[in-house]
Structure formats: structure tokens, C-alpha cells
């Protein structure tokens, strides 16, 4: 566990050292809303794929998720709080610089980390993410009650073992209070990838173009099932190792 010096919130971060390490930048995997490192990345085959490339994987459970602290106040879930958790974890692990790979909300945070700490991020892969406001039309006093794509995500994850619906609702409110802005764009190498049926990632291709990056579409996949696709994994591994 590493503690954010600003507010004392502690997060768990897996540190997976490959058996034959390549001389390469470690990969920071940032999971999506309502999941965890294990569920979003490990179970979907990512840690095996990266291990096979000799890449060191750093896998935090974001605050409010997994084995990390779960404050129930939305004031603890602003983007800078997550970024503070990540830099504290990297400092504790002695890691200067990473490649950041996100899924959904994790992509938004990868963007935020690269924007505010460009010296710590070499490349960014944004998966299952677009510039549209994911919280548009959501009743934030009762997330999950409506019929937006985010409401559907919320309903799906609120009942997962280990999740705290109150903390997740607070997280949603905190994130929604600072809508994503694509300006200024990132200047490091960027890959944007999303399922062709992913409504949450609307505008992903334009976001890639804005950053001078590459866009990869995963045919036939939506927000919930693009993450485990071989096409997505291979695209990100190629982007990180090229």
C-alpha cells in the first residue's frame, strides 16, 4: 500500500516483475470505473501478454476500488487525487517513468497523469475512452437509476463482490464535477483504441487525431468486452514495444 501525502488515502499497487525482464519502461495499467486491476487487466489476459514481452507491470487499484481505500465523499475523487495516488505509488516503487495504459475512466486518469507530469510518462494508450462527457444525462444523486450508458455500467459494477456502491457513487460525482477536456492535447505518443460498438468511447478517433496519435478500432466489440480482445492487446503491445 502507498499513501497519498495530501489526504492519507492508501492504495494497493501490484508490481509484477517478469522472469526475463527486457530493458524497457514499466507499464502502468489503470483500470476502469467499478472494476480493479485483477478484474480489468489480469483476468482479461493483459498481465500474461506483457510478461511475455518482458515488461514490468504496475497495477494499482484506484481509490474507491479493489483493495484500496474507499472514501464515501465525492471531494476525494477529483482527477488530481488519483494522480497524486499514482505518483506516490511510483515514488514508493522507485519508478521514474512509465507507459500509461488506461481503460475507460483509467484512460481519463492516464491522460491527466501525462498532462500534469509529462516527465513521468513516455507513451499513453487510451482504451475504451472518448472525449464525450460520460456523465451527460446521469442523475448523479442516484447513479444507475437512468438509461444512459454510464447508468448501465454503474448497475453492472455496483453489485460486484468487494465494491462499495456509496464509494462508487461518490467517485462518479467527483469525476463528473470535472468534465474531461481534450485541450490542451497530449504531446507524447498516443494510441486510442475502442470497440466499434462502444458508445462510451464516442469520438475516440477524433481524440487520436487531435493528439497526432493512432486509432485502432476493435470490430464488433462494445465497452464491456473490448478489453479482453486479442486485437486490442496486440495493438497496445505493439505500440509499447515499437
Amino acid at each position, binding site marked *: 500500500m502507498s499513501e497519498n501525502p495530501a489526504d492519507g488515502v492508501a492504495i494497493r499497487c501490484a508490481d509484477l516483475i517478469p522472469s526475463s525482464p527486457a530493458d524497457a519502461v514499466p507499464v502502468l495499467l489503470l483500470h476502469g470505473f467499478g472494476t480493479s486491476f485483477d*478484474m480489468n487487466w489480469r483476468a482479461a*489476459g493483459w498481465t*500474461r*501478454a506483457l510478461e511475455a514481452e518482458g515488461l514490468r507491470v504496475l497495477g494499482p487499484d484506484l481509490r474507491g476500488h479493489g483493495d484500496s481505500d474507499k472514501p464515501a465523499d465525492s471531494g476525494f475523487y477529483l482527477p488530481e487525487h488519483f494522480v497524486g495516488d499514482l505518483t506516490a505509488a511510483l515514488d514508493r516503487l522507485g519508478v521514474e517513468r512509465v507507459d500509461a495504459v488506461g481503460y475507460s475512466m483509467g484512460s481519463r486518469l492516464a491522460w491527466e497523469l501525462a498532462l500534469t507530469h509529462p516527465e513521468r510518462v513516455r507513451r499513453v494508450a487510451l482504451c475504451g475512452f472518448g472525449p464525450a462527457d460520460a456523465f451527460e444525462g446521469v442523475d448523479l444523486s442516484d447513479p444507475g437509476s437512468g438509461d444512459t450508458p454510464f447508468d448501465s455500467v454503474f448497475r453492472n459494477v455496483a453489485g460486484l463482490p468487494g465494491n462499495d456502491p456509496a464509494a462508487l457513487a461518490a467517485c462518479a460525482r467527483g469525476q463528473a464535477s470535472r468534465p474531461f477536456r481534450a485541450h490542451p492535447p497530449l504531446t507524447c505518443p498516443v494510441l486510442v483504441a475502442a470497440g466499434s460498438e462502444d458508445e462510451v468511447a464516442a469520438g475516440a478517433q477524433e481524440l487520436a487525431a487531435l493528439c497526432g496519435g493512432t486509432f485502432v478500432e476493435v470490430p464488433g466489440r462494445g465497452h464491456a468486452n473490448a478489453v*479482453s480482445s*486479442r486485437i486490442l492487446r496486440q495493438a497496445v503491445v505493439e505500440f509499447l514495444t515499437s
Partner: protein
Amino acid sequence: MAEESVTFTLPDLGEGLVEATVLEWQVGVGDTVGRNDPLVEVETTKSAVVIPSPKAGRIAELHAREEEVVPVGAPLVTFVVTVSDDAPQAGIVGKVPAEERPTRRVRLKPPAD
């Protein structure tokens, strides 16, 4: 070295889920896979996962098509695995001397083509 076929069923994916949809096979019949190599990508109502191969061996048969819903415990894939003759066998203490090693190849089930 002998070969035998082993069928792997859809494991319990937790959370009380009773079935999963096959999204994409990561292997084909005739492929040789290592233990923990990606085997099949499946989706439940809760998440999408890649199931790693529980064995090293050759893929003899895939028991579900892509987009098919498979109940937990139903056959997923059949492997042909090589069984080392040096492996401990029931009723035998110590190693069988090399010159007495049986030459017969054991196949419990014909390969499914």
C-alpha cells in the same frame, strides 16, 4: 512417452455465474499450446475474461462455437497431452527399468477430426 486426451470444462468464474458466452477462441484444432497460454475469451454478464490453458498439449477438439453460450461444467476443449513414462504411477514404487518399458502407446480416445 504416452498420450492421453483430457477434456477441460468451463470453470466456475465466480460471482454465482452459471454460464458464459464464447467470444473468441485463441487456439485452433491442431495447435500446440503451453500451460497458461491464452485459450479462449469468454464474456459473462459481469466481465470479459481470457481463460488460460490449464495444460500443455495439442488441441484435439473445441466443444463450443464463437457466440455460443456455455454452462459452467460443460465441455470446452479437449487436449491431447503427453504423459511422461517417468511420472509416478499407481501401484508402482520406484522407476520401471528402461529395458522393460512398454512400447505400446496408450490412447484413451481416438482423435476427433
